């Protein structure tokens, strides 16, 4: 059975879309990421969905998946809603700032490579990804390998950055009883929220793979709480993103609904799996996913730079 999608203007197999959704949802529930870095390119490559519609639809799918997974994580005691809200204010300002930088970069003159014109933004964003993603992945990979030998189940990460930031007590100071994080200064939390938000706006992704390491290493949140709080945070960021994309006609609700059928089931299985896996092991797997995302970006950049030469 095949189905024609009106906005994406492609014909797809609903079963294949539901299966793709299940894989993305599992990653979302397990690692606290939306899966946009996986969903967007796969929708484009496998089903031929135009990139703008793939990005918008992926955000709509992230919205539904993060609601379902965050509810599950809340039941497991993994969501610190107060912390999520505190960081959200900084996140929104960061998101808007990142989006403005993108607008400014659009005005940069295109460069010519082997007779083919490449827009500056198409070069700049993958390069930022390629600096940032391997750095995050390597820090997590090295730390998690060390921690797997000594971390108690569900324990906190020893982070000197989090220790230093927790010592800053500029008022107002916020107390987080539910997650076990010591009192933290609100201005510091806003600044911490700004970073992942800025990268989300700049790179056009949900930002889970930025936010989860930030919550672990800069706030000092236990891994499972970081995953749950990241998903909670993502509900609000993806609502904003879906709304913006819908205004531009970039969301296919039928495609999003099919993806969600799979991803909601996958997200619950992923969230339940976090109960059985140690925090350090989760971070180790997460670092491999981030390496995978970096490899995908590298492949795209190589194709952009080399394909004109080969053609």
């Amino acid at each position, binding site marked *: 059975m095949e189905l*024609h*999608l009106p*906005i994406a203007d492609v014909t797809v197999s609903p079963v294949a879309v539901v299966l793709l959704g299940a894989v993305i949802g599992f990653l979302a529930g397990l690692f606290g990421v939306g899966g946009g870095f996986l969903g967007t390119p796969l929708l484009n490559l496998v089903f031929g969905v135009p990139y703008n519609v793939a990005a918008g639809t992926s955000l709509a799918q992230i919205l*539904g998946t*993060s609601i379902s997974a965050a509810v599950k994580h809340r039941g497991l005691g993994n969501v610190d809603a107060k912390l999520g809200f505190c960081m959200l204010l900084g996140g929104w300002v960061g998101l808007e700032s990142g989006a403005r930088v993108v607008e400014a970069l659009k005005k940069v003159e295109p460069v010519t490579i082997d007779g083919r014109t490449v827009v500056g933004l198409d070069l700049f964003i993958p390069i930022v990804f390629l600096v940032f993603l391997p750095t995050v992945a390597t820090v997590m990979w090295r730390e998690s390998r060390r921690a797997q030998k000594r971390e108690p189940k569900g324990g906190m990460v020893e982070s000197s950055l989090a220790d230093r930031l927790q010592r800053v007590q500029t008022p107002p100071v916020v107390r987080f009883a539910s997650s076990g994080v010591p009192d933290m200064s609100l201005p510091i939390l806003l600044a911490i929220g700004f970073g992942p938000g800025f990268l989300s706006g700049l790179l056009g992704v949900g930002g889970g793979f930025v936010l989860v390491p930030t919550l672990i290493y800069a706030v000092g949140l236990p891994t499972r709480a970081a995953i749950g709080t990241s998903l909670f945070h993502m509900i609000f960021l993806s609502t904003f993103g879906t709304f913006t*994309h819908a205004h531009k*006609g970039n969301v296919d609700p039928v495609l999003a609904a099919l993806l969600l*059928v799979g991803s909601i089931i996958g997200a619950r299985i992923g969230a339940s799996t976090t109960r059985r896996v140690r925090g350090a092991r989760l971070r180790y797997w997460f670092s491999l996913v981030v390496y995978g995302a970096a490899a995908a970006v590298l492949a795209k950049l190589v194709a952009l730079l080399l394909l004109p030469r080969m053609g």
Partner: protein
Amino acid sequence: MALTDFIAQVARDTDPATAGYQASAVYVTICLVVPIALGLVGALLGYVVEKLGRVVKRRIR
């Protein structure tokens, strides 16, 4: 199919001023309501399935 036809129909309004297209309010609402509703329904169904699973396990024991 009626659903896809309906979405295609409401997706874009022709803007007579620019002779271009813009997303209609109905379409934007559908794009937001569909994922939120499915996310909530999924969470509810998951909760029900887990509860039922526990009851069945207890009965078996």
